[in-house]
């Protein structure tokens, strides 16, 4: 199997030339930008809101031990069972253990990127359980046996025609390509799944320490149903989801909606504080909350990039990123794509294997600019580059910079660059555009600038001697 870097390069090459893909993504992003700007503009002071959100998350993460203790103590006080997992494998084992103990067969899931991170569906299906994604976008990519293209819009890369064809083939439906009709096909199929599923599985957007609640944001109502109908509920979340106080949500829910989809508030924002209580008539009898580390503590141990754990997974940085827009979500080969994925994946899965993501950036800073919790993404990409070289520089990297410093420290050699360059440029057409061209990676898509016939220094000298 080729390396993540090779795969990235090959897929990026294909997708940047795929005009159909470009049209689909540009169309989706344009719609997003219009509503996002309108919703942001409605704030009385968006800048202050953003700064306050960043500081609230800073407070939560920099006292994570205190708030996690408070969160889990409050959860357990209302009968929720809390589990801890250091690795993805442990989390999978815990979840499988619960499902087996309940003698369950079918699981209905609402959207959870954390479950993608630990490859839960694969593990569950491997053990013979039926797993159904209920978020429409996730349902579509599950039918296609794909991973989500985007953390908020999993099926962003597909047209209605693609989805029509998929449903007619996989669900034996007979729908037109009308989005409403297609949505109703999914609604009919999934309604029955909710009612018959043994287990409801959810992710989480926020974990409220003060009251011991998990907050879930969604538009479709699928998480609401997942947390209402099945007898057992399982929630998987990363330990970084903490917010200190319940009222912090008054700030975070609108910021998440604005940045994520451009809505003022998402359709359903629901806080769960326990399983069914003695005086209640529905809801799950048991609720298991699984807290996942999966190397988040390693990121926490890096004070320079600790703020990457502030991320609320709104996807805003993906939407504005010129790299994401050109290479697409699947090309990254990671659970989290776009700038935030490029920043955190090296921490979660190894710097040397995933450093190329930090190098494929234009450093335009659009991601830092748009982040609702002010994660300094563009600088973190630079820090990843620096760290990767400090840890292990390649032979060509070292040789290149040695040559650079050798020449630039010697004026006599430095003076020769321009004349040699001019000769080289004259000979260049002989190899230009072929693989023999030493500047191939530049010239295959661009023209090299012409070296001036005279350098400034030469001109100055000539002028004085005249």
């Amino acid at each position, binding site marked *: 199997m080729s390396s993540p870097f090779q795969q990235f390069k090959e897929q990026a090459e294909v997708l940047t030339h795929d005009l159909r893909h470009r049209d689909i993504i540009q169309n*989706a992003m344009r719609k997003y930008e219009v509503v996002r700007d309108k919703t942001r503009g409605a*704030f*009385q002071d968006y800048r*202050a*809101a953003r*700064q*306050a*959100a*960043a*500081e*609230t998350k800073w407070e939560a993460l920099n006292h*994570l*031990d205190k708030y*996690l203790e408070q969160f889990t103590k409050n959860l357990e006080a209302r009968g929720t069972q809390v589990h801890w997992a250091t690795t993805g494998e442990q989390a999978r084992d815990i979840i499988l253990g619960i499902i087996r103990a309940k003698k369950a067969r079918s699981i209905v899931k609402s959207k959870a990127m954390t479950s993608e991170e630990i490859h839960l569906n694969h593990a569950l299906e491997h053990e013979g359980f039926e797993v159904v994604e209920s*978020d*429409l*976008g996730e349902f579509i990519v599950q039918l296609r046996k794909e991973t989500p293209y985007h953390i908020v*819009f999993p099926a*962003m890369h597909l*047209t209605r025609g693609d*989805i029509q064809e998929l449903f007619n083939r996989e669900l034996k439906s007979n729908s037109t390509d009308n*989005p409403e009709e297609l*949505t109703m096909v*999914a609604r009919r199929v999934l309604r029955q799944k909710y*009612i018959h599923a043994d287990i409801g599985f959810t992710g989480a957007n926020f974990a409220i320490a003060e009251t011991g*609640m998990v907050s879930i944001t969604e*538009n*479709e*109502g699928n998480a*609401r*149903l997942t947390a*209402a109908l099945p007898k057992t509920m399982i929630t998987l979340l990363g330990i970084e989801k903490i917010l200190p106080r*319940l*009222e*912090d949500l*008054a*700030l975070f*829910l*609108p910021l998440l909606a604005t940045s994520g*989809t451009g*809505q*003022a*508030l*998402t*359709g*359903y*924002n*629901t806080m769960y*504080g*326990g399983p069914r209580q003695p005086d*209640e*008539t*529905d*809801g799950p009898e048991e609720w298991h909350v699984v807290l996942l580390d999966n190397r988040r*503590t390693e990121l*926490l*141990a890096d*004070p320079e990039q600790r703020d990457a754990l*502030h991320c609320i997974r709104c996807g805003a940085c993906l939407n504005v990123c010129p790299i994401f827009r050109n290479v697409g979500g699947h090309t990254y080969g990671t659970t989290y794509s776009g700038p935030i994925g490029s920043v955190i994946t090296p921490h979660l899965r190894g710097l040397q294997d995933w450093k190329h993501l930090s190098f494929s950036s234009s450093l335009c800073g659009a991601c830092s600019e748009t982040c609702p919790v002010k994660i*300094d993404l563009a600088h973190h990409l630079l820090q990843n580059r620096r760290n990767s070289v400090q840890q292990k520089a390649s032979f060509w990297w070292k040789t290149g910079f040695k040559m650079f410093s050798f020449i630039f420290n010697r004026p006599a050699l430095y003076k020769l660059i321009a004349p040699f360059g001019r000769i080289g440029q004259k000979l260049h057409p002989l190899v230009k555009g072929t693989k023999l061209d030493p500047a191939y990676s530049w010239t295959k898509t661009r023209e090299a600038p012409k070296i001036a016939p005279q350098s400034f220094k030469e001109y100055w000298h000539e002028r004085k001697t005249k």
Partner: protein
Amino acid sequence: MTEREKIFARIREALTVQAPLPGHHGEPGHHPSFKGAPSTQAREWLPPTGDSFADQLARFRANAADLKATFYLANNRDELAKLLLELRDVEGWKKVASHGGELTDAACKTLGLPVCRTDQKFDVNELEGCDAGITECDALVAQTGSVLVTNRSAGGRALSVLPVHHVVIARREQLLRDLPAAFELLKKKYAGNYPSMISFITGPSRTGDIERILVLGAHGPKKLTIFCI
């Protein structure tokens, strides 16, 4: 050592080194100083709502229209009854679901239809087959056009999301200006004994997962009707 202890040990080890405050590349002194918890001032930053009841009502009405929810303000009980009967007949309701409550009891009596009560033991399939779920609520939020429900105030977890049409009956004094006010209310009303589910419902169920085109009724209600009396 349990996994919990190991994770806590790693967290405490990691936090021995301070991280710079966010938003200014580590340079101190540039951030505005927030009084108390940063988010308690949220009211000053979030979208404006106006101070009077009329302003806030207008805001709620406009938001509901944007969200494709239907909003009626009834001046008295008779007017509410008339509106409910109209809705029943236009949509051809045969059976509704509801829960015990002063407003919901009155509504069910007016409608004169069989009722599936979700505050008693009920069958999910029966609830699924109902033409509407009629609930009370904890508050309406002018700023966002949201209905705040809990499983205590609105007949459990499924009633407000499983039937195809969610009908909310609220009192006008339940209209709150903004989200911070809604969280204040929750704390005042429930602190120490929160319901196990609290939900801000903002419009009918929706999705934009196919080409970002809005479709209502993805999984939850296709319609949301809010009566305010």
